[in-house]
Each structure stands twice: as structure tokens, then as C-alpha cells.
């Protein structure tokens, strides 16, 4: 079983991915399930349309797609939580946050109502990282330490100038998980898997399609030397456990 922990569907500025293309690609690569976030505009602004897109895709995919919910914190806490509640009621299974597209600091307090709702819903939280100054691994680790009841996925693991921050961030917050997208297995991922304080149980496979070539992501990451048990965890076991489904 392979689970892709993060893709975006819909039309972005430079890329697009339809649900049909996604499912066809998953079939070709042997990816059983994928977590789907909406397109850039729907993360930044049109969040209700985004949630309808992801939950609608999930509802029509026979369990193969799991919807991320989104809400810009600039809606205000109450309105943002209302959007998340609508998404949950429509079947969403996780929260996706993009501090760059949504324009806030991870530590400025704006995202707290969203995280509180994610905790009440039992959702893991995906956070895009790697873009300075407000989407970096180490502040995310501090945020994660403030919410030990939540699991956070460090989207893109700081790619690329902040890959060097990934290991210190993972050591700092035990409820933080790295994703594999863009990461060379023979430098970064090996370091993370062999670190006594991190290990393969803290790494989840993600293609970050359509920004990447999913076949290349899967092929490259598959070269990471792992035991069968650890391979199962990285390629789907861990994210499935975090999702509770």
C-alpha cells in the first residue's frame, strides 16, 4: 500500500491537476490513496470552494482520496472554524495550512483556532515549509510543541535552503513528521532515518503533485534503504495511523 500524503487538485498559477488525472496517475504508480488539498487560489482566498472541491473529489473516489480542509486565518477565528466544520461534515480528514499563501506567521497566534478545531476533529495538520521568513521548519516545531495532541506534517521538509533545519526541528518536536517530496534520499532522508531521535517512523511519503513528477518522486524515494516494516510506515502506514483511517 502506498499513500501520498499531499497533492493539490485544481488549477494553480503554473500547474493544474484534475481528479481524473490524479486517479489515473495513482493507478499507474500503484498509489492506493492520496490526501488532496485545493488549488492555490482556494487556499489563499476562495476557501469554501476549495473545501467543496476536495470533499467532492473524496466523495466521488470510493475512499481513495482524503480531503484536506482549508481556511485562511484572516477570516477571523469563528468564521474560519465554521469553514472547517462545514468541510468536516462533508468528510474532510485533515487540515492543510500554507502560511505563505495565507499570509501569516506560524507563531503570531492567528492559526490557533484552526488548530484547536483540528484537535477536536482528530485531524493531522499539514504545513507547507521551506519558504522564508514565515514558513520554516523550526517555528513549526515550536508550534507543534504547543499542541502535543496534534500531529503535524512538515510539508516539503524545508526544501531546499531549510533542509538543514529539518532534523533539528524533528528532534525538537516529537509530534512533527517530515515529508519526502523533493528530498534526496541519499543525503537528507538517510540522515533523518538514521538519527536516533527521529527515525523512519517520522517520515511520510508525499509527491506534492502537480509541482513535481510523481513517478520520479516515487522512484527516487523508493531507493531509500529501509526494512520492510519501515518501508510500510514511510509509504503509507504512518500517515494512515495519523488519519485514523
Amino acid at each position, binding site marked *: 500500500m502506498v499513500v501520498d500524503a499531499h497533492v493539490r487538485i485544481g488549477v494553480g498559477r503554473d500547474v493544474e491537476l484534475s481528479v481524473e488525472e490524479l486517479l489515473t496517475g495513482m493507478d499507474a504508480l500503484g498509489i492506493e490513496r492520496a490526501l488532496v488539498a485545493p488549488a492555490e487560489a482556494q487556499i489563499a482566498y476562495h476557501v469554501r470552494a476549495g473545501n467543496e472541491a476536495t470533499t467532492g473529489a473524496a466523495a466521488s473516489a470510493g475512499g481513495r482520496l482524503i480531503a484536506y480542509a482549508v481556511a485562511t486565518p484572516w477570516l477571523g477565528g469563528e468564521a474560519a472554524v465554521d469553514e472547517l466544520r462545514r468541510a468536516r461534515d462533508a468528510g474532510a480528514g485533515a487540515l492543510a495550512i500554507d502560511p505563505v499563501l495565507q499570509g501569516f506567521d506560524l*507563531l503570531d497566534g492567528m492559526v490557533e483556532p484552526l488548530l484547536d478545531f483540528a484537535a477536536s476533529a482528530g485531524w493531522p495538520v499539514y504545513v507547507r515549509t521551506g519558504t*522564508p521568513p514565515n514558513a*520554516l521548519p*523550526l517555528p513549526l516545531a*515550536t508550534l507543534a*510543541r504547543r499542541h502535543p495532541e496534534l500531529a503535524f506534517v512538515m510539508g516539503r521538509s524545508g526544501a531546499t*535552503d531549510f533542509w*538543514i*533545519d529539518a532534523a533539528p526541528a524533528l528532534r525538537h518536536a516529537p509530534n512533527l513528521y517530515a515529508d519526502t517530496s523533493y528530498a534526496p534520499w541519499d543525503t537528507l532522508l538517510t540522515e533523518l532515518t538514521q538519527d536516533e531521535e527521529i527515525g523512519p517512523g517520522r517520515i511520510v511519503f508525499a509527491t506534492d503533485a502537480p509541482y513535481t513528477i510523481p513517478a520520479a518522486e516515487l522512484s527516487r524515494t523508493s531507493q531509500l534503504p529501509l526494512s520492510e516494516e519501515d518501508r510500510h510506515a514511510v509509504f503509507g502506514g504512518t500517515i494512515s495511523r495519523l488519519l485514523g483511517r
Partner: protein
Amino acid sequence: MIDFHTHTPLWRTTSWLGGAPFTAEQFVQFMDGAGIEAAVVLSHDGLFDFTPQANDDLAGFVAAYPDRLFGMGTVNIRRPSEAVAETERMLGELGLRGMKIHPWLQGFSPHEAMLDPVCEILAAHGGILLSHDGTPPYSTPAQIAALARRHPRLPVVLGHGGLHDLWREALAMTCETENLYLCLCGTPPYAARRIVTQAPAHKVLFGSDAGLSDRASQDYAVARAREVELWGIPETRRQAVLVDNPRRLLGMTS
């Protein structure tokens, strides 16, 4: 007040912020005029050309006023054995009080293990590590906090309180990391006000960044020192930031 972030002139290197040359006597005149009792003086040439010569020059500058000027030198950490020897010399023979690092100018990440032997020497000698901060990719407050966590006996100072973009991160890291201190220096006033009221009271310092001016009188630094009075912070906190905290950290008894 005690100014925790100033620089010598550039004597041997050049920079777009070269500034006017000045003597130690002229620097103390600036301090007297601005109401600055004592100052931490950081290597300036050493940011660009981190040689023992830069530390010698710094030591000569602060030696003229040993009760008022406290020097912090720097080393080339990419030459590990030389860095260790020079750190010992800085703190011993030269009488400097700590080390300034500027990771993005000097070209390393705070996570790099070659910093550890140098930090261990600083901690063993009761020294202080002050780092530039506020600037990705290699000088974020959280990166420097991670270094501080590796050396819990070493006082580590965020030299710029996160500047404009990362001050919230600097505040959070100062609250989270016991041996991390924060120097308000170039931090915007609205952020300084928040930091002063929310950070642990004993961990906030002030610095003017004096030494970079085109005038030996350091006019911008005088203005920054005066501006503190307009921040609207409680008197007890002002006293802590400007006097009590730096005196404690520097071990000043008189």
C-alpha cells in the same frame, strides 16, 4: 544605560556600511553624550575577514576603557583547530568577553557541528555568544535557539531581536529557551514594546548598533538610545532592559 550591541570601525576591510573612522576616545565621547555607561563592542572587520588580527585590533580598542568597553571577537569556524585555539586566546590573553557570530555573512549554519567545540570553550570560560539574527536562511532566531539548546550553560544572545520579519519568532524562542537572550537592536518599536512586555523580564537587552555611522558622533545610535524613552514601556522593564539585565549578564559589579 548599557548598550549591548556596538561595533568598532572597519580598519582593514571595506563594506557598504564602512562608516567614519573613530578612536576609542571618540567612541566614549559618543557614549557619554548618549547616556551610555558601558558598551559591548563587536568585531567589525571580523565579520568579513575573521582573522586573529581582527581580534587583536578589537582588544586594543576596548583596552583603553576596560571598565566601559567589553569586546566580543570572532573566529573562522571552518578551520576548526585554529578556531579552538583562537577562542582560547580571545578569552584568555586578549581579555575579550565573548564571541560574535554572523552566520549569513560568515557563511555557515548555526546547526553545523563545528561550532560546538568553540561554544564549549565559551561556556567553560563564562563567555557569551552573540549572534546576528532576523535574516534567513542562516540567521533565524529559531536556528540560533537550536544552537543554544545544544549548549545550555552558554548564554546566547539574539543580536537583533528578530529584526522586522522574525521578531515574533525571536520572542517565542526567548520564552522557550532558558539560556537564550534577546537584544533589541534594529527591532521596530511596536515589536520592541511587545517583546519587552511578554518576554521573561530578565532576558531582554538593548543595543544601538553604534559604529556604522558616517559620523564619529554616531548620530543614529544616539537617536536610537533616545527613542527607547518613547516606546511606552513600564519603568521597571525599562530599568531591566537598559541596566539590570546587561549588568548581570556581563558580571558588572561596580
